[in-house]
């Protein structure tokens, strides 16, 4: 940390180079290092601890506790959790909900953002407020009427095996799309504002239709923002717990994140196996984290920079 008294600093300001080189680390920077090392260790500890416990047989940890040297490390808990709960089913459910939901959200949000950017500013702001505010509401504000709506809306049986919007993948996709739309509209409309208007003007002069200007011109230019949003949405929808817990009643239809609540009941006597299941559920998001961390952070930055 730069420790200089103001009087000295002012007198030497002109001779001082703009970027000062610190010859040796000051007390402040050592303290910062120590602080960050301790915090980082504390931050990964719960995850590593869960991994350690889930690699040990429950018989052993029941005898010795979790904080003990392992006599044996085994993948048994992972295999058992996977087989006994038929976990592939929950992953498949997550896939069935997340992929369509992310794609539809991006399509619809970019469409709104495109149209709004062509409108007079009064309508433009009203629409943006409508979408953005909707995304900020706590989910629990919506859930009571939504639950009754889902029970009241009938679907043909080839779309939903329950015959209702309730307890169906379609219903889960619909609410995830509707709820996430607002954030994406907000981000994409801000992003589209940075595209020079002349590009669109030129396309109009060339006689391009509105659809072509949206699909062939604007969307390709938004690719970076769309990639960042896709990463965020995938993580958020995959990690969704609340909608699936309240709107899906059949245990076997639940995506993996909400299915963890059921597994907790099923494996109640074996906490090691529960944590093995939880860690397996984290694999897709950790994959996103390792490969697309930049995209994820870029998405959050886009969402907050214009706030």
């Amino acid at each position, binding site marked *: 940390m730069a420790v200089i*008294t*103001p009087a000295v*600093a002012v007198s030497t300001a002109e001779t001082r180079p*703009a*970027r000062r080189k610190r010859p040796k680390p000051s007390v402040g920077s050592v303290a910062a290092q120590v602080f*960050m090392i301790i915090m980082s260790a504390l*931050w990964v500890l*719960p995850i590593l*601890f*869960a991994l350690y*416990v889930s690699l040990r047989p429950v018989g052993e*940890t029941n005898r010795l506790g*979790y*904080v003990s040297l392992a006599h044996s490390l085994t993948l048994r808990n992972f295999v058992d959790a996977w087989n006994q709960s038929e976990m592939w089913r929950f992953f498949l459910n997550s896939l069935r909900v997340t992929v369509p939901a992310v794609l539809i959200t991006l399509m619809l*949000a970019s*469409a*709104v953002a*495109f149209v*709004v950017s*062509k409108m007079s500013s009064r309508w433009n*702001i009203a629409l943006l*407020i*409508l979408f953005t*505010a*909707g995304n*900020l*509401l*706590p989910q629990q*504000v*919506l859930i*009571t*009427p939504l639950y009754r*709506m889902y029970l009241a809306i009938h679907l043909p049986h080839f779309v939903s095996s329950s015959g209702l919007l309730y307890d169906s993948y379609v219903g889960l996709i*619909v609410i995830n799309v*509707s709820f996430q739309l607002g954030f994406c509209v907000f981000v994409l409309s801000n992003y589209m504002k940075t595209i*020079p208007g*002349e590009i669109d*003007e*030129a*396309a109009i*002069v*060339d006689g*391009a*239709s*509105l659809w072509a200007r949206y699909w062939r011109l604007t969307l390709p230019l938004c690719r970076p923002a769309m990639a960042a949003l896709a990463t965020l949405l995938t993580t958020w929808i995959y*990690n969704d*717990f609340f909608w699936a817990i*309240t709107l899906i009643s059949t245990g076997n239809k639940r995506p993996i*994140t909400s299915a*963890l*609540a059921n597994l907790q009941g099923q494996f109640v006597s074996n906490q090691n196996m529960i*944590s093995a299941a*939880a860690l397996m559920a*984290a694999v897709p*998001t950790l994959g*996103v984290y390792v490969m697309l961390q930049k995209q994820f952070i870029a998405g*959050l930055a886009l969402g*907050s*920079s214009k*706030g």
Partner: protein
Amino acid sequence: MVSTTTEKTTPPATTKRRRRRTVRRLSRRDKLVMALLLGVPLLLDLAFVWFPALATVLLSFTKWTGVGGIHLKACSAASSLPGIPQPGCINGVQNYNQAFTNYPDFWPAVRHNAIWLLVFIVFATPLGMLFAVLIDRGIRGSRVYQSLLFLPVMLSLALIGIIWELIYSPNYGLINTIIGRNGNNNLIDWLGDPHLNLWAVLVEASWRQAGYVMVLYLAGLKAVDPSLREAALMDGANAWQTFWRVVFPTLRPINVVIVVITVIESLRAFDLVYITSKGNPLRGLELLSVSVTQNIVGETQRIGFGSTLGVVLLVISLVPITIFLYNAFRREER
């Protein structure tokens, strides 16, 4: 690509006129496309977000078990036959009265939500900001720190609830073993004891929230013009003064986002508590969001009363939402 034909020769005045004309020059097909592009998402948003939000308000003045329709007459006028499910009726402000005066979970829930918010404000958020500032100063290994501190943000709250149970476990857990309270006669039940469990869960929530705030704040800090900071240092400000007097004020937009996220996230808090309490009500962990859900998923649905609790959440959340919208769209209003 069309973009290569961009003409720069058009003078600004005609550009403006032409832009105004573009809407009128849309062909009928273009207008149809435009209506579809806007209409479908708008319909979804209205039907599945705004209609339920409005319906919550209306239902909060009724009494309804979900059986039969809602009759537009006062509940006091309805015949009361015990044991037979009644159709819905209009209950006036009775639900609110009941919530405020004799629903046992209400005030604990409000208090716990307030504590949640307070812990986020005084602990999780400043911690995240501190992480961001230290990382932004480019201390050695900052990229590693960033990756590790950010890790919990990728995990679902359900998963976080599960893995922290290993840390808090009374007999085998990390904390009790270390402090020597894992014997059957001196156990500390971190997640069961109603005086402790809220705080234990808040540690989990803060563990994730700090990383979230850190990343948002880092994005804001990266956008700060470095010459500002250098100018301040040259003028003799120390790092502390530079941050609070020069950098922090320019971060106003991101600060608003952080405030909004902090409030909204503490109102939404649900997943961690649901996992920790295994889906049942647990004393010490009453929250407004949990109460709302309990009134619809139980055997006896209380749609009207659940909506009332939803309205309370709605009213509180309108404060940060308004702040955010005001800040986000004020500049464009002009």
